[in-house]
């Protein structure tokens, strides 16, 4: 039914690569022929697809310069959607698989996870609980308020993204976010390489750029392909749900789709620090009738889940 992730990515790479070779097109590219270099000298040619659907021959040995990214489309959001996320704290056992999968999927360095797992205990009398925390994609986002250049923005589908080609690195958004959801490229980042394996470009968070902020993007490029975000898909406890508020439905890793509003009503769902008025799009179900050991209890997962996220066998 849908284009596979691989094909999608590859087609995308081809298209962006070709877009970048507007230069290459001027530079001796012509309608695809037999693959040989007509001039008979220089490197062989390969075929690329231009955005307007034409096949052109491009010299292989001339890697296209990094394309100038066009963020206009990505700023609008996925049409008709309004994403919500739910974490069922009663089911979360603190294994940290979400942290690990997210870091792997987004190639985030060890100290800069987009989702973090907190061992929470609001006061000594109160119950401890595991608290996985991605970006909350607030509807009244403090980060977007303070950004001087609109590099971080809120889309119609609810996702808050960062345009790292526009970010000036002032870090005001990091200071303004009450949830510490944002991280910074303090050093020159190492970007994953290898064509065909990694989607890059607007909305993917890749390539990372030095001196810019980044954060959880709700796996926007996966949602576009109707795939569950990494943290949702990997959760063996089925504790994480994602869905479209317009459909009033959320789905977990097991493919269980439940009515979002009913889930919140029946389970007394809440949002973290509701009184800050930020209107997060990420909801929590309280750890009532917890099925797994809480932090500090015997049998609980131990160790620094954020650093290595080791899973129990």
């Amino acid at each position, binding site marked *: 039914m849908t284009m596979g992730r691989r094909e999608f990515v590859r087609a995308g790479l081809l298209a962006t690569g070709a877009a970048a070779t507007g230069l290459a097109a001027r530079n001796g590219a012509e309608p695809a022929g037999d693959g040989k270099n007509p001039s008979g000298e220089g490197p062989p040619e390969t075929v690329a697809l231009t955005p307007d659907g034409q096949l052109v021959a491009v010299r292989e040995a001339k890697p296209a310069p990094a394309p100038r990214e066009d963020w206009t489309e990505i700023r609008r959001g996925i049409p008709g959607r309004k994403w919500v996320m739910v974490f069922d704290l009663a089911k979360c056992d603190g294994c940290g698989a979400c942290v690990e999968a997210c870091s792997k999927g987004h190639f985030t360095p060890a*100290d800069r996870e987009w989702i973090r797992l907190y061992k929470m205990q609001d006061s000594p009398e109160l119950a401890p609980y595991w608290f996985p925390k991605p970006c909350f994609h607030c509807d009244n986002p*403090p980060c977007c*308020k303070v950004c001087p250049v609109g590099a971080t*923005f*809120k889309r119609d589908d609810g996702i808050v993204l960062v345009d790292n080609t526009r970010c000036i690195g002032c870090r005001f958004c990091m200071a303004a976010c009450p949830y510490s959801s944002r991280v910074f490229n303090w050093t*020159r980042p190492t970007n994953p390489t290898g064509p065909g394996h990694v989607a890059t470009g607007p909305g993917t968070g890749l390539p990372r750029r*030095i001196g810019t902020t980044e954060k959880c993007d709700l796996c926007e490029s996966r949602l*576009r392909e*109707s795939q569950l975000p990494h943290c949702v898909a990997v959760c063996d406890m089925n504790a994480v749900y994602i869905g479209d508020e*317009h459909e009033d439905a959320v789905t977990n890793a097991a493919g269980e789709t439940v009515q979002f509003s009913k889930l919140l009503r029946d389970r007394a769902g809440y949002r973290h620090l509701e009184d800050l008025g930020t209107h997060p799009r990420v909801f929590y179900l309280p750890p009532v009738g917890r099925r797994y050991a809480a932090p500090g209890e015997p049998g609980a997962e131990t160790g620094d889940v954020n650093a290595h996220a080791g899973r129990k066998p």
Partner: protein
Amino acid sequence: MSWTSREAPKKSPYAQQVETEMLATLEPLGRGGRLWIAALLAVCGFALFAYITQLVNGLRVTGMRDYVSWGLYMTNFVFFIGISHAGTLISAILRVTHAEWRRPITRMAEAITVFALIVGASMIIIDMGRPDRLLNVIVHGRLSSPILWDVCSIMTYLTGSFIYLYVAMIPDMPMLVRAAEKRGRPRWLVQLYQALALGYKGTPAQERFLNRALGAMAVIIIPVAVSVHTVVSWIFGMTVRPGWHSTIFGPYFVIGAIFSGTAALITAMALFRRAYHLERYLTDDHFRKLATLLVALTLLYTYFTLSEYLTTWYGGLATEARLINLLMGASPYGAAFWFWAVTGLFIPLGLLIMPSKRSLGAIITASVLINIGMWLKRFLILVPTLETPYVPAQAAGVTPGYTPTWVEWAITAGGFAAFMLLYTLFSRLFPIVSIWETAEDAGTTEKVPAAPPRGRFARPTFVPIRALLLAAGLGALAIGGATRVHAQAAGPGDARVALTKEVRDDEAQLVATVTADGRPLKGARISFSVKRMFSPMTLGEEVTGSDGRASVPFPSTLPGGAKGELAVLAEIVSPDRLAGMRGEAITAGARTVRGEPTSAGPPRALWSSRAPVGVIAAISFLLAVVWSTYVFVVRQLVLIKRDGEEKRISYVR
């Protein structure tokens, strides 16, 4: 050569003396002076090296990290913007209130403003992760961001301070031209003075224009200065973080700025007095008068500090209590805080409170202590708050902390050195005490595009599915029936599941009819569900009766498509041989939530790309008032020049 050199206006002996002595300060530097400048240049050079290191390696070379994401640079920024208030206060307020004793110190004060602003603004650029994208602030600037407010007000203040400093220097310029020519100074310098003189020679008309310009600037620069430190405080105050989100932050910062600015001015006066032997102009009386002001400001700043932290501590909100513990408890920050309270507030107060005990040494000591203390205080406002976020970092196994690196210390030292260097060079080119003034004293949301997917950010495939659903739903509506069988699944042995919506006794129901080999199938377990993006959402399970029918209530409260259309499914769970067989239908009558997307674009909101009208109107109005005053002042300068040219013509004739 020029008319100015031939002018020899009559002057009082005192005025003559002021002129001679002040022009003497512009003589070439001695050995000590050259060493001083060389030392400052060396520090600046080292800072430049540190900055290049930072540009090459990124901000990783600083001690800043994801939790404490602002550090020394931001501290320096707030500190320098703070001391920039020295100029405005002394010069403008005293000028407006006709305090005559201000005359010898106005220029010294105004110069602090200009150079402190330059260094302060540079600190922000140094702090940026991408200084190469600085112009984005103009190209993509968002008026809802306090940073834009800062850019607007600091640029306005810097421009205004330049104009103000310059306007008050015009009457000195002809004297400088004469002196430079007489002493054979370089030709470019003479030309510079001449250009800056605007042909001023003190005609009544020129004096009138000059006083008009100075009066307008003195009045307008006061609100501009207040606005600058207010919006600097709002970088912190507009966030919801404990320790920052305080309603008194604007006035607290403004008072702090005037406080540290006055102390900086006293320190500068002491240094210049010693270096240029200005005892005659910068008298003990000047120091005492400023000390009185400093006492008042120390008390005021103590009062604001008490108001701020006492209410926070007494209220005891959990997050704020964490901050207060860190800031005033047993931590390095606590030690620094109390060190500041003692050396930055109480000792200066003790030194200055008794008028009879205000020796010059005491006043200068107090000022230096206040300057050190205020830098420390800015640091303490910034860093401890960043270390106590709402969601405790420790719970994620992270201990936030901040230790500035050599790069940050080098650049901080460079900032101070650059400030002193600019100030020194200024005092080499222009008399640091205003000659004429001192002499006078003696006298979108877009519509979903219908075009096919383009490029790699193609619309996902679920969109066509939705379009299909929509089309089917519209078809159902067109027929007018609330019910329409959309699909029937055929299974082994010609079994079928038909799904319909029926209304019985005012209650809508989803009815699945199972037939096998043409006959109704009894006892089949049917699961009803609604199609959703990732997987179907179950409504319930029912067993077919003898008529082969099973039903569940129609989910009329669930949101459907734009027209309330809902894709429903019925799937056989048992018997096993038929399990998985489905019937699907598009039914009408669900809730409509989505509606048609509007093309109005994003809403006007603080977070949006479209700022609220009030924000735009307020900023535009304020900028218009201030800049039109600047235009008025520049117009006076043009009039001065024109008048000078007319007089020159008549003189030549």
